[in-house]
């Protein structure tokens, strides 16, 4: 008999999970649990790649109903689901905070059955975000049924097998009217903020019209999407004609973008990595150092979750790639 899955059954399972947690809390006299849900998050994953740690980090700041959809390559069709809760005890508190999680496992043959189940699993009146942990899954037409429900679709073009293809998919989604996000864009937010901060100073800002060239130096051999995003963002923000150059440091470092240089008549401004934690900003005789925090998948996702509406600046730059 073909495997089937029902949203109602999974929701009943979820309700049982809450009841058990609540009973446990009463028995242990810990004040029960706090069920928190601010968003729906669909995580699309290939195979058995682990996303538990990332989800656990995310839930601390964006407790959500998380649906993890695993697409596995198997000869035998498979369609399974289970409900669970992710709980943690904040330091110094007696009450656990729990966010809910539903795991679905499908194979390529049964993937077509999942959208109808997922539609019944969304928590009502809350935003829906779809994170394609593996951007390659975008090629499955089955996901087209879910995209209209999403406030935002998030990928990571930098970490995808084919970044160019991923960018193309993202551009197509954006043209079709979907809200889109790319973790590669979130990776350069601190670089962009540093540029903006530099040009807050009136003396620097006065020279922005003189900038003729942008050079981004990266550590990898090929030009990563992060470098392209950064350069195109600077160019599109300045308007006018500026040349863009990409250079490779050809040295392995703990970071990807090594430096950004803006050059024009009588003006040079640079932002250069000092180490894994800091960059140095230099223009004229002015120097300043800025902290760059360590980026993890969860910090990048959290930034994207903060921007659930359309992001016109990102979309403008995406269109230029």
């Amino acid at each position: 008999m073909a495997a089937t899955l029902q949203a109602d059954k999974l929701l009943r399972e979820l309700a049982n999970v809450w009841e058990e947690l609540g009973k446990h809390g009463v028995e242990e006299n810990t004040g029960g649990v706090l069920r928190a849900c601010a968003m729906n998050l669909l995580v699309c994953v290939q195979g058995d790649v682990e996303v538990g740690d990332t989800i656990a980090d995310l839930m601390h700041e964006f407790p959500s109903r998380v649906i993890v959809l695993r697409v596995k390559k198997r000869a035998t069709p498979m369609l399974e689901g289970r409900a669970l809760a992710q709980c943690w005890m904040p330091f110094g508190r007696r009450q656990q905070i729990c966010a809910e999680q539903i795991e679905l496992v499908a194979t390529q043959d049964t993937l077509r059955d999942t959208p109808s189940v997922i539609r019944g699993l969304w928590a009502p009146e809350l935003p829906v975000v779809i994170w394609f942990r593996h951007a390659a899954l975008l090629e499955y037409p089955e996901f087209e049924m879910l995209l209209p429900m999403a406030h935002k679709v998030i990928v990571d073009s930098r970490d995808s097998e084919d970044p160019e293809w991923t960018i193309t998919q993202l551009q197509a989604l954006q043209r079709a009217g979907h809200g889109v996000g790319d973790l590669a864009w979130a990776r350069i937010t601190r670089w962009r903020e540093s540029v903006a901060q530099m040009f807050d100073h009136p003396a620097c800002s006065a020279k922005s019209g003189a900038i003729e060239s942008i050079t981004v130096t990266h550590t990898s051999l090929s030009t990563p999407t992060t470098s392209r995003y950064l350069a195109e963002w600077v160019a599109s923000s300045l308007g006018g004609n500026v040349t863009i150059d990409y250079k490779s440091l050809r040295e392995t470092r703990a970071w990807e973008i090594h430096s950004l240089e803006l050059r024009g008549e009588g003006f040079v401004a640079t932002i250069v990595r000092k180490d894994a934690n800091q960059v140095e900003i230099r223009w004229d005789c002015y120097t300043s150092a800025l902290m760059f925090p360590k980026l993890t998948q969860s910090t990048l996702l959290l930034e994207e979750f903060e921007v659930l509406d359309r992001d016109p600046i990102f979309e403008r730059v995406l269109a230029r790639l």
Partner: protein
Amino acid sequence: MAVVSPPPNSLENPFEDPLRFERRLAPLALVIFGANGDLTMRKLLPALYRLAYERRLPAGFAVIGNSRTGLTDEAFRQKMYESVKQFLEDSAFDEDLWQEFARKLYYIAGDVNDPACYTAIKAKLAEVERDHATGGNILYYLSTQPSYYAPVIEQLGAAGLAPKSATPFGNGYRRLVIEKPFGHDLDTSRVLNEVVQRVFPEQDVYRIDHYLGKETVQNVFAFRFGNGIFEPLWDRRYVNHVQITAAESIGVGGRGSFYQETGALRDMIQGHLLQIMATVAMEPSAVFEPDAVRDERAKLLRSIRILKPGEVLENAVPGQYGAARIGGEEIKGFRQEDKVNPEAQTDTFASATFLVDNWRWAGVPFYIRSGKRLPKRVTEIAIQFNEAPHSVFSGEPLGSFGGRPNMLILRIQPEEGISLRFLSKQPGTGMRLRPVSMDFNYGTSFGARTPTAYETLLVDVMAGDSTLYTRQDMVEASWQVVKPIMEVWGNTKFDFPNYDAGSWGPRAAEEMLGRNGHQWRTP
């Protein structure tokens, strides 16, 4: 008059991204008077460091600390290093960041009454403007003893360092932050303000009330005015009474001599809780802009009925903690604390009943209490709603919640959040009701760390946003409210101590509510 430099203008900076970037601040030099004191070490520098860590500080930034103690720049930096490491809240400490941050810290030793001190400060300001591109903007922070406020302000004016100085020094904004207390009473508050206004226009004066900087107090605005369902209930037709509690479990510690001149009424009720009451009770402003919000707060404060002398003792209860044993530890009474007069009449506990004479709140008592050596540290606002007009459940027991089951609790600290209590049917046969609580916990719904009040307030003053700061009319209105209480208490010899350390205050405070058929909530 000094020319005010415009803050970063998102329209002029082509690289602005308001969706992703934190609000950025114009460059500035921060001059802290009293830089060797507790507030600077425990609150200001840790907050500034944290802002640097979060990349919130402008690139052009420097701190000039001043105090009488002779310190070099290096010694000051070392002292601040130790303080920041010790007092940083919920935050990692990065040595590399500290090195970058510390090179912007400077120190000028000098007496605030000595013009030479301001000459030195002026020279240092010119230096940091050159070396750190502070853009000519200066923020003066009065972290000194209150008795030094007037001399500092006058000297700033005389030295050309204030906006209304006869010969202003440099360009850029000149802002003044004053810590509480703003005067010791209404008259001294007015005198201080006259000194301030001679050299600083009101728009450049920021009177700090760190309670207003707390995320949860700000959330009262969001809760009341961001949602459509609560305001219709937020008046005399539905609210039975409001209780505002600010309790501390600690005593005065080593600050006995300062505290005995102040007391809970001045320190907490006039200083903070009336502002919180105003936030809870004010009318919505048309826009969320500083003066629009502060206009409504000030209007509410002016609407609080001023007690007549004969009404004070029934409607305002002072207390002073006595010795007790708490959790196996012998706790001293206030009069046994260091440097406290054994005959002191200081109120370490103060409670009062206030009425607001306006259409929204006529007849609704606002009960406010604050005290030291209470059972726990808690600050909350509890809004007790009226009972249902008619109970259809006659004959079924409603338990001790009786006829007024609905209460909305806004928890300021700790465990910041909001709870709504209501009745629900108990599972099973019959219609038995029991109270349940619907909870929103700030920290769990929005992430692990919220900014400290000082981080929020420092960013706001650097951005020129005075929404969370107290205006002079608000200060005077709150002094007006407590003035008759201070006068009557000052002329009355109370039988102190009148509550044990570790209890919820004097019996008379319970009786004050009891006369209205109410009782204090146990938080």
